Every structure is written in structure tokens, then in C-alpha cells.
């Protein structure tokens, strides 16, 4: 499906963003919290990217922001995958009433669109990074439960699982040694695709101002603060927006490639 070149470029981009998140703050030329010069300097007048409305170095804020955006999305994805996998597995192992309840609740939660569900959490807990991470992490769980359950259900139907059961293996042993072991590939592709969604969700919520303190550099926050100066300093909003979009696009392509690779044969 997706071309080889697309995959190579996507991998390079994802690695670059990860490196940026890890080492970026060390390489930042200035403090992202305090002004370095006049506000709204153009990239030609100052550094590689100019300054924002408060005279802070945009390049430094982008570098620090990479860590904030990426780690938030990573934490949210980890939360979604752990909840989704656990409950999905339980729904397959205990097909009777417990599985039914889990699925019914997941379906009902899916009746609230993801972003709205996330905003509901923010409404309940008040703005902040922890809230945004929890909101996206928990908001993604119902969908992940359904998807992981269908992966597990397919594996649980395989002959070797029946054999293991006939040999007297308990539910825990079957879950660990057979179902989870064989679901690693599809789960990885699911988690990758989900990360793209989480990254978009996190940056959308922070863009809307739901992360609280706007002085903390984060890509969605930076894009939002550039919104008021679109004509005079378009790069303030365009640079973080483009970085967010490219990252989502790259992760999305990697997810598609993994899905292709781990698609069950036959």
C-alpha cells in the first residue's frame, strides 16, 4: 500500500522528533520562559525562528515543546493501551456476563465523541496537563477495548488455544502464554495508530487552552498563542502546526505499514 519511500521518510521524521524531545532542551539556545529581545521579531532578525509576542525565542520554545507534547501523548497512549488491553482481554476470557458488561459500557462511552469525552474530564477536573493526559488516555480506552477484544477473540478461536485448554491450562496461563504472546504484533500496530490519534487529541486540547498555564511551551499551546498574529507573524502558528501535522502523518503511515505487516493471513 504505502510506498517504501514514505515509510523511510516517516521513520526518519519520527526518530528526529523523538531525538528533539530527548535532547532538544539541551540544545536550546535560550530560556523558553523569559524574553530575549523585542516581541514578534522575524526569523531573519533573530535566531532561526524569531520571537513570540512576549519576546521569547520561538526555536527554544519549540524544542522544549517537543518534549512536552510527545511525553503527554506517550503517557496518554500508555494509559489507553494498558486499560484497553486489560479490559479487552478480560472480555474475551470471561465471555459470560463480565465481558458483556465491559462491552456494553465501552459502547455507551463510544456514544460520546472522543474529543467531547475528553472535554468532559477537563470539565470535571479543571484545566491542566495531568487532566489533558488523563482525558485523552481514558477517552481513547473504549475504542481500544473494542479493537483489542476483536484481536484477542480471533486468537482465542485458534486451535492451539483449544488444545491448551484441553490440556488443563488455566485462564491466566492461556492469556499470558498464548493470547498475549500472539497478539503482540497486531497490538503494536493498534497502539501506533492510536498514538497518532492521541497526539492529535492532546495538541487539540492544549490548543483550546485546556492545559492551563500558557507559559509552559507545548506545540498546541504555541500554535494557539500565534493565532492572534497570523498576518504580522504567521510563522508563530504555522511552525508548530506544521510540526504537529507532520508528526501525526508520519506516525499514521508507520501505523498503516505495521497493520499491513501484521494482518492475519488466510
Amino acid at each position, binding site marked *: 500500500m504505502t510506498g517504501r519511500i514514505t515509510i523511510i521518510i516517516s521513520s526518519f521524521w519520527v526518530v528526529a522528533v523523538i531525538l528533539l524531545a530527548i535532547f532538544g532542551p539541551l540544545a536550546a539556545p535560550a530560556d523558553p520562559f523569559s524574553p530575549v529581545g523585542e516581541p514578534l521579531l522575524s526569523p531573519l532578525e533573530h535566531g532561526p525562528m524569531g520571537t513570540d509576542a512576549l519576546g521569547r525565542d520561538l526555536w527554544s520554545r519549540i524544542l522544549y515543546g517537543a518534549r512536552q507534547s510527545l511525553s503527554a501523548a506517550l503517557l496518554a497512549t500508555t494509559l489507553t493501551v494498558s486499560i484497553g488491553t486489560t479490559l479487552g482481554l478480560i472480555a474475551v476470557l470471561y465471555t459470560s456476563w463480565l465481558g458483556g458488561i465491559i462491552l456494553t459500557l465501552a459502547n455507551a462511552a463510544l*456514544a460520546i465523541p472522543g474529543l467531547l469525552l475528553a472535554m468532559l474530564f477537563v470539565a470535571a477536573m479543571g484545566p491542566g496537563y495531568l487532566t489533558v493526559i488523563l482525558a485523552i488516555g481514558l477517552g481513547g480506552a473504549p475504542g481500544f477495548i473494542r479493537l483489542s477484544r476483536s484481536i484477542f477473540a480471533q486468537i482465542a478461536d485458534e486451535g492451539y488455544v483449544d488444545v491448551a485448554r484441553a490440556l488443563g491450562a488455566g485462564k491466566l496461563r492461556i492469556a499470558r502464554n498464548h493470547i498475549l504472546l500472539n497478539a503482540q504484533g497486531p497490538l503494536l500496530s493498534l497502539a501506533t495508530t492510536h498514538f497518532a490519534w492521541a497526539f492529535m487529541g492532546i495538541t487539540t486540547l492544549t490548543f483550546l487552552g485546556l492545559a492551563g498555564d500558557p507559559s509552559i511551551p507545548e506545540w498546541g499551546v504555541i500554535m494557539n498563542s500565534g493565532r492572534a498574529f497570523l498576518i504580522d507573524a*504567521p510563522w508563530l502558528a504555522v511552525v508548530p502546526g506544521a510540526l504537529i501535522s507532520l508528526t501525526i*502523518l508520519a506516525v499514521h503511515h508507520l501505523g498503516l505499514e505495521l497493520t499491513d505487516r501484521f494482518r492475519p493471513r488466510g
Partner: protein
Amino acid sequence: MVPASHRTQTHFLIDIAKRVFEGLLTAWIAVTLTFFALRAATGDPVSSLLSQGLATVEQAQALRTALGLDQPLTIQYLDFIAGLFKGDLGLSLYTSQPVDQIILQQLPSTAELALSGLISGVLLGFFLGTTAAWKRDHWTGKLASSLSGLSTSVPVAFIAILALLLVGMLGQQTTGNLNFLGYSGLLPALVLGITTAGPIAKVIESGLIESLQSEYIHAAMARGYQKDLRLLWHALRPALPPVVSLSALEAAYLFSGTVVTETVFSRPGLGRLLLRSILEGDFPIAQGLVVVAAIFYTLSHLGADLIAMLLDPRLRDTT
């Protein structure tokens, strides 16, 4: 003996009744989840007014009584559900206006935006998807396919910003005021349409590719059909039911898109109302909006399923 056609008709009705029941159950659980999630986390919303110094202790107590917050949670829940049936969603914490009225005030603006967004999204998605499948081996098809991929990956916020920037720069060039584009709703609707188009295009693309490879199309071509509009119509027919159901689902999801679009374009509407109520801590409004969205989503989901069952006979005898 019951005639065969009769029997399938009864089955069909039972299927519909089952789907309606499932839909109602889902809506009820979603509403209940919303109610308890907000109550459990916020505890007493009036105390936030107290801590902000917006109310005295006596006023807060009066407000608690007025909002029914001094009642046990189960009574509050039953009141809330009973109110729902009467269209009563409670009162705003700040203005004491009924929430249903506030929502109704803002509804037309958002409905207009969402509807025009959906229409432009379906049109654009149809165009991109058909082109991608029909011209699959040509560069135009590949371009259409990657454009629809792009539309799902680029956040609404960034598309909106790019659109504003483009119009702003054009406005500078022509020294004319192009702000009317934003206010007339054309630009926000287009932005929403672009984000909606991606999934629709993908469904049309895969459906059309599949039916173009099917035997009846090969047979039609063997009988001398040219690869023209007539053939396209034949091939599109089986690809349409999923598009109809997807469009109905997208209609519900558009609400998330309007939150961002209304914020960026400074348009009044439900999306901005939700954002403001969350940032201000006016939880009855937030709760009312989420409940309305959940009910609307469930209903459109149900509608989508019923339309798909009507359009596609294969879906009718699944039981």
C-alpha cells in the same frame, strides 16, 4: 403456512425494534456515565463559586437548594432523568438561565455550520474517493488518495489557521476586506468539510475498487460497456450504503470539529459555549451539552443503521 416474504418482513421489524432498543440503552448509559462522572469529580460545584469569591455563604446555600444539590445523589439523578424527558437540563451556575434555553439559543449557528460542513465534506469526499479509485493507476488518482489521507491527519485547528492565513494574505493583496468569508460561514464550513472528507473518501475509494474488480462489472465490460459514467454508476451502487452510514456518524462527530472551528473563527455556537463553560467551571452547561451530544450521536447512529438496512438487503437477515 406463512409466505416467505411475510416472514422476512417480520424479521426485519424485529431487527429494527432490537436496534432501537439498543440505541436507547446506549443513550441511557452514556447519560448516566456523564452525570456520575461529573458529580463524582466535581463534588460540590457551588464551592468553586465560594472559593472564587463569587458568592457569599448564604447565597451558596440558597443556590445549593435551588439546584437540588443538598439532596442525596440518587434523588438528584432521578430528578435529572425526569427533567431530561421534559427537556429540562438545569440552570447555569453563573447566570441562573435554564441550560436548555442557552443551548437552543446557540444551536442554529452550530447546526448551520455543521450542516454546511457535512455537505461540503460529503461532496469533497465523493470527488476525492471516486477519483482515487477510478484513476487508480494515473497520477490524479494517487494525488486524490494522498489528499484524502492528508485530510485525516492534519488537525482541524491547523487547517483553520491555514485557511485564515490564506484569506488574510489574499485580503492584503487585493486590499479588499475578505473578513466576510469568515463571518458568512463559508470558510469555517469549508474547513470542517475538508476534515470530514477524508474518511468518506477512503470508504468510497475502497468500496469502488472492490466493486470494479467484481464479476458483474467484468461481465458488463465484456458485453461492451465503456469505462464511462454509466459503468461508474453501476460500480458505485454497492459502495454507497457504507457511505450513507458513515456520513450520519460523521454528522455527530462534526460537533467536536465545531469546537475548534468556532474558536478559531470566533463564531458563536455550541462548541464555544462548551469550551467557555468548561473554562469557567459552569458544569450544568457542560453536562447538558455532552448529554445532548450523546443522545444526538446515538440517534444518528441508529438512523445510519436503519438507512443501511433499507439500502442493503444483505444486512437485513443477519440474525
